[in-house]
């Protein structure tokens, strides 16, 4: 257990007294600047223009760091070719918005003459969509620059809509749209000379991307624009409103898609000779099944996070029914299934999604599964395999004496350089060997019974069900969720100074019966979430952010405080 004894005692006292333990006054770490993920980009377009506008094109690949794309998003730039892709996607969107089919529905005005510039109408359009895309009220400079560009293009091409497309594309390729730039103002406190407070608008974006995986809605922007969001009571009220919103599902799905490495589904393939029933539809269903399972348990039912590892209830489609070996009535859609008690399949670890993702195209992989469990669910780091490994002994050969993965790994682990990692990964990975490379239940491999017993950090288990229970009972599992969710929320690793906050969050998570939404609330209203620490190499008077400092009330550019706004930036 990683909770320091003093904190544990404090938490216990708090429980006994019937009150919540106080959020330790911990200032957040450095500011972050994060590139929108593909999903966030799509959400932004849907929020601005509606679902009828399609986002066509490929985005630059995400950059996974410390197990999270959310951290990598703060360490990426846009390459020249990536910018070209953003521009192409932006042009496609602008074409759709100004198309004869959609313009009447989407645009707030018509030009006086379609063959000439119309500054008034352009201004209405820019103001309507700019606030949503840039996640803030537009400044006069923002608007005027786009009117001028649109007018020039409209006059040149004698087409109002051609000019409007220029204005729209300019917003769609704007760094402020493509990147979430945190801006803050100095707010030193005793002993914390470098303490910063996020601006209202930055806090609004940070909050909405954490909880909803999308930009702020009008209500949140309005609160931020009034300068009220940084008030703790108002912040708590807004967080509660957002946690009750239907968009929370998007936020929860986005987090688990990230931490469970579900982007790997985009490139998943299987040997159809080995797994002839596998197809892309089945893979998509497996991915969706796990996400629905998580949302159903943690959002709809507000269940204990640890029940994910022991629950036998899960959403099911007919094609997945063939994998799980259970009847499914639904022909095309989803229905809730309960796994039979006599099946070893229980909880998240036995889902087909994991079995498919953490396996080779033609066979299962206890090692890949073990690495995933250690890294994603226990927050432990497993070193990369050495480059000079001899895999020949591991490859299945029905003529050899090594019929099961356990036999082959035993041989493999005789090499000392391999053993030190495999001893961590293989025992738990072998516990899931009842599931083949697509998750279908099996009890034998090459005619030999599969032994799924093992030891998980000192606790014996006989198979996947007991392994799932061992995960549910292991405090490292919930502590890892706390760590990953906090990192996901702030877009970076926690600083040394933030570690007491993580201990507090772990204790509070336990007090709140391991409810995910309670943990999300704790993070969102924490002092650390709305503050930051200026990096020593950035003198306070130097403007680092690409976001101009703005008056929260009006949205107009102005210096805040006695210096300037400091924006975060990572490499």
């Amino acid at each position, binding site marked *: 257990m990683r909770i320091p004894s003093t904190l544990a005692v404090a938490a216990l006292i708090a429980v006994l007294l019937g009150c919540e333990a106080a959020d330790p006054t911990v200032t957040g770490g450095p500011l972050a600047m994060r590139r929108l993920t593909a999903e966030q980009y799509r959400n932004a377009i849907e929020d601005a223009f509606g679902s009828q506008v399609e986002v066509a094109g490929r985005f630059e690949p995400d950059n996974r760091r410390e197990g999270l794309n959310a951290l990598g998003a703060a360490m990426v730039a846009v390459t020249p070719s990536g910018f070209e892709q953003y521009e192409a996607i932006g042009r496609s969107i602008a074409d759709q918005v100004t198309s004869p089919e959609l313009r009447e529905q989407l645009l707030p005005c018509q030009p006086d003459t379609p063959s000439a510039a119309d500054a008034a109408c352009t201004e209405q359009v820019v103001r309507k969509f700019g606030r949503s895309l840039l996640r803030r009220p537009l400044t006069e400079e923002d608007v005027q620059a786009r009117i001028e560009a649109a007018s020039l293009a409209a006059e040149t091409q004698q087409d109002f809509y051609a000019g409007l497309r220029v204005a729209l594309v300019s917003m769609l390729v704007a760094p402020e749209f493509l990147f979430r730039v945190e801006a803050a103002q100095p707010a030193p406190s005793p002993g914390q000379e470098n303490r910063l407070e996020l601006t209202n608008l930055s806090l609004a974006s940070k909050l909405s991307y954490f909880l909803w995986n999308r930009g702020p809605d009008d209500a949140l922007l309005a609160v931020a624009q009034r300068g009220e969001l940084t008030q703790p009571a108002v912040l708590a009220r807004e967080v509660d409103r957002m946690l009750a919103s239907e968009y929370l599902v998007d936020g929860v799905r986005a987090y688990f898609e990230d931490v469970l490495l579900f982007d790997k589904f985009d490139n998943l393939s299987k040997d159809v000779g080995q797994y002839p029933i596998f197809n892309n539809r089945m893979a998509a269903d497996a991915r969706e099944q796990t996400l629905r399972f998580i949302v159903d348990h943690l959002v709809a039912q507000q269940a204990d996070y640890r029940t994910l590892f022991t629950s036998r209830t899960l959403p099911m489609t007919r094609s997945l029914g063939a994998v799980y070996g259970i009847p*499914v*009535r639904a022909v095309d859609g989803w229905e809730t299934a309960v796994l039979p008690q006599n099946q070893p399949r229980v909880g998240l670890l036995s889902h087909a999604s994991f079995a498919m993702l953490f396996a080779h195209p033609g066979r299962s992989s206890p090692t890949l599964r073990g690495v995933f469990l250690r890294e994603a669910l226990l927050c432990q780091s497993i070193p990369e395999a050495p480059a000079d490994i001899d895999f020949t002994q591991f490859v299945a050969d029905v003529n050899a004496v090594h019929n099961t993965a356990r036999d082959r790994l035993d041989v493999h682990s005789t090499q000392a350089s391999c053993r030190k990692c495999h001893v961590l990964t293989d025992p738990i990975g072998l516990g899931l060997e009842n599931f083949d490379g697509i998750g279908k239940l099996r009890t034998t491999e090459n005619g030999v019974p599969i032994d799924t017993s093992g030891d998980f950090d000192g606790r014996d288990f006989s198979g996947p069900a007991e392994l799932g229970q061992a995960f549910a009972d292991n405090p490292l599992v919930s502590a890892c969720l706390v760590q990953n969710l906090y990192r996901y929320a702030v877009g970076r690793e926690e600083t040394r100074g933030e570690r007491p906050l993580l201990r507090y969050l772990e204790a509070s998570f336990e007090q709140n019966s391991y409810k995910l939404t309670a943990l999300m609330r704790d993070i969102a209203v924490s002092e650390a979430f709305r503050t930051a620490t200026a990096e020593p190499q950035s003198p306070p008077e130097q403007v680092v952010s690409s976001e101009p400092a703005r008056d929260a009330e009006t949205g107009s550019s102005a210096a805040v405080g006695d210096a300037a706004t400091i924006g975060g930036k990572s490499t």
Partner: protein
Amino acid sequence: MKYATLFVLLLCVTGCGDKSASVAPTDEVVAAAAEDKVRGFVFTQWAYDIPREDPGECPEGFNITDEDFFSEEYASVREEVSRRYNAGDREGALELLPEDACRDPGVMPDPGHILFEGSASVDGINLDGIDSTLAGAGQCAHEDFVSVNGEAGVDNQYWRLMGCVKGMRPDGLFDRLFDTKSTILENGYSTLLEIKLVSGTKTNGKVEARLFTSAGPVTKDANDNVVPDMSQIVHEDRMFHSAAFPGQIKDGVFTAGPVDAKLKFKVQAIDNYYYFRDLRIRAEMLPDGGMKGVLAGYWDIENAFDFLTEVYIGPVHLGRAAANNIGYQCAGVYHALPRVADGHPDPQTGACTSMSTVIQFAAIPAFIIMPEAGSEVAAR
């Protein structure tokens, strides 16, 4: 162009998915399935028994078709038939041909039909329990076969009817169609078998069985095989649910019957059902959980004639085109059917109304779900 050959090129649309409400099977049902007390199977092979190794001889030759029988009439209109057919006027094309006994067998006298009269090593079951001979008493007298395994008394009058039809011989049209499993993979429905353990164990015990037609087609995998362990909803029309019938599993062999069953098929231009009476099953239980064996029973001869001749593409009746391809005349078969019939004598006339028929089949585990939401489920 032989317009009749179009028949075999045209495939029907098999996407006949059901629209049942999505209500998950009950916990009890799932548990029963998990304990193997109830096992479900979906058929992966369905083929008339064609004795490949020893099909027997046809010393009188093979049956001819309407195209042969009316060769002069066909020749005189062939070009115009092709022109109208290719122009999309299929009804107009068919009007030029002699009257069609496949639509109405009364339009022409019996042209004759060559029955198979020798011996052949067919598969099947001794359905009537006796070693029958043509010299036996009554209109239902018939000559039994000796099976590949040496079992005497095997009843298979369907082979008597079709043994001298070219398309039914080994490597003939039907054989090739069944080789490609079209009756399964192109069928808009599938045939389901439920086995419920009554006493004993699942390897040696008394069982109760039921046959069903499903509401939709099978699911195929990447290698064009039927996906095992898939859920299949039973057809909502109870006509396609057999009654429960007794059976047993002993020494790795499943036997059951008799039972009357109507089993629906929608393959290529056929959208019909089989009506079998006193159907029996004998199948070997396979290590992979599947089974392989025969269905043997009495095929109602009126239904058999309908099944063979009710062939449509859209509104166009193509029973004669099918007969021309396979190698028989509908009128000949119509009049031959009572001669080969060996079962279910009419109480009034004493004439037999059904013919013994053998279907080779294979099946794999599947989940069988009754059509009513919340109703019981047969499982794998």
